[in-house]
């Protein structure tokens, strides 16, 4: 059993060292920039610390503060839930629709594809500022157009009941990544299956329902779960939209109560910034960070289940 030939053992050791050498950038990066700070986050979540005076033990006080006294936590969680349900599902449906459309376009397909894809590349800050201008209730061109055809002109980013739909519109505009993913998946569906379905007299809807959908369902599942994870991280767009709409003057040292209007654009990542870097409540910021961690890990676990079609390139 333990009589491994010395030469073989030397070879194995050499191989192990080689593997370690190749992995070392990430092993160092993972430990220093992820594992160690994660442990610190857990530690700080039980400490009272303002970033200046030495941290002191605080027990579960940060946790109870966040869950029962911090007025931003539950609205942020509710907003996330709203965005997960509405924004993610609309993005998947719309992305699939645009993906289907682009596979059917025969003339000028390249031009259309570029037009559909470009918004995805627009820097989030620039795109959000553009939308804050376009959807400006007073002077924006969208309400101008809506008004001129007699449609209602919502307050968009300035109205708490319209701010999340406005963010959803912005997210639908940046659908390019999903379009490409769905387009690739749709082109991979075996042609014979469509032909067979057609011979059986299946109409367009039946072909979509019984041929297309089963073939692309792993990709649909993938886009749902990654969409949920992205929504957990949703930060720049709601923050910038709130700031611009509220007319706050940005820049350093400016205190901005997040979530304008009326906490309707709050998301969990904004709370980490608000607590940790504006209110210098390090402990409570770490509690929110851990809530984010737990939620994201739960969805990542879902993503890694084989059934989701992800990671199928295992050899």
């Amino acid at each position, binding site marked *: 059993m333990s009589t491994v030939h010395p030469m073989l053992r030397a070879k194995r050791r050499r191989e192990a060292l080689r*593997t370690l050498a*190749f*992995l070392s*950038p*990430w092993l160092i*990066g993972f430990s*220093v*920039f992820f594992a160690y*700070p*994660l442990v*610190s*986050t857990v530690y*700080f979540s039980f400490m009272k610390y303002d*970033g200046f005076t030495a941290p002191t033990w605080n027990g579960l006080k940060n946790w109870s503060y966040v869950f029962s006294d911090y007025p931003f936590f539950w609205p942020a969680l509710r907003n996330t839930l709203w965005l997960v349900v509405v924004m993610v599902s609309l993005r998947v449906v719309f992305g699939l629709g645009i993906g289907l459309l682009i596979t059917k376009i*025969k*003339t000028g397909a390249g031009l*259309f594809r*570029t*037009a559909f*894809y*470009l918004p995805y*590349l*627009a*820097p*989030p*800050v620039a795109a959000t*500022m*553009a939308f804050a*201008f376009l959807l400006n209730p007073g*002077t924006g*061109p969208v309400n101008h157009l809506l008004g001129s055809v007699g449609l209602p002109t919502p307050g968009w980013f300035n109205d708490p009941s319209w701010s999340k739909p406005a963010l959803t519109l912005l997210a639908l*505009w940046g659908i*390019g990544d999903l379009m490409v*993913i769905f387009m690739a998946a749709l082109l991979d569906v075996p042609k014979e299956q469509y032909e067979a379905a057609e011979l059986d007299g299946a109409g367009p809807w039946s072909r979509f329902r019984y041929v297309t959908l089963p073939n692309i369902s792993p990709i649909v599942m993938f886009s749902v779960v990654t969409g949920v994870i992205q929504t*957990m991280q949703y*930060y*720049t767009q709601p*923050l*910038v939209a709130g*700031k*611009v709409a509220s007319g706050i*003057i*940005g*820049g*350093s040292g400016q205190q901005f109560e997040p979530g304008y209007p009326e906490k309707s654009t709050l998301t*969990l*990542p904004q709370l*980490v*910034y608000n607590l*940790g870097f504006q209110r210098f409540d390090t402990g409570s910021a*770490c509690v*929110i*960070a851990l809530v*984010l*961690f737990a939620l994201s*890990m739960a969805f*990542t676990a879902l993503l890694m289940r084989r059934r989701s079609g992800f*990671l199928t*390139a295992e*050899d």
Partner: protein
Amino acid sequence: MTTHATLAPSAPASATGLPSGARRTAARKAALHWIAVHALGIAAALFFVLPFVFVFLTAVMSDNQALTRDLWPRTWEWGNFGTVWDTPGFLTWWRNTLLYAGLGTVLTVVSSTPVAYALAKFRFRGRNLSMMLVISTMMLPPQVVIVPMYLFWAKQLHLSGTLWPLIIPMAFGDAFTIFLLRQFLLTIPKEYTDAAKVDGCGELRTMLRVVLPMAKPAIAAVALFQFFYCWNDYFGPQIYASENPAAWTLSYGLESFKGAHHTNWNLTMAATVLVMAPVIVVFFFAQKAFIEGVTLTGVKG
């Protein structure tokens, strides 16, 4: 032009010897289908393109007109772009962004490649676990570890107010880049690496001389993704650079630009155009790599 394109699909129908009435119905159906699809395409294209058009039109309006509901500029104020360009700080933000994105991209690709190679080509104990850890870190919001990370850079290394806390970690691999490259490297047949080894190449040489040349498209894709991640990053510069305007990037500075000029929507939109422009230019030169990269993210190799 329309009829040519629509009649073409009906040609096979005549080859099958269908009666001419049925052929005509099929041709009409194909024509209607073509019109419906392209009408829908144009409607969708308007949704995606019009925002760019309105932003651009406002960027070249006069100060006064930008405050009205006019959609078309009465006078074309091209000088707005010059005004933005000459705004104090704008050039510095530009330089900082290039530094962050350029250096960040190079460091990320160089440090992530061997890791991706090992995860794709080596068999070792803990390989699946490593892969799971890579994916988990890729999926986690940056806010999860930001508080201790900030304290580490600011209190221990005194590097807050600079972009180094954002650039240095990129020399230690990036989970998304590793994952994407690894997925691509898995698709390179084992025969190539085996042949290299028979010829006496070590692993490093095999990776550099045999595998990486074949992985150029994937490397181009991850480099582009990383470049735009840095270009677009708002959160990182906000955490580390906000206290020092000389270290701001375009993404972070742009938002404060609106404040500097209050409701000067024309200048704000001119600045927005200038920040978006490089992204769009690079996309036109690197379309294929982008599309391949996105496809790789979602579809098995």
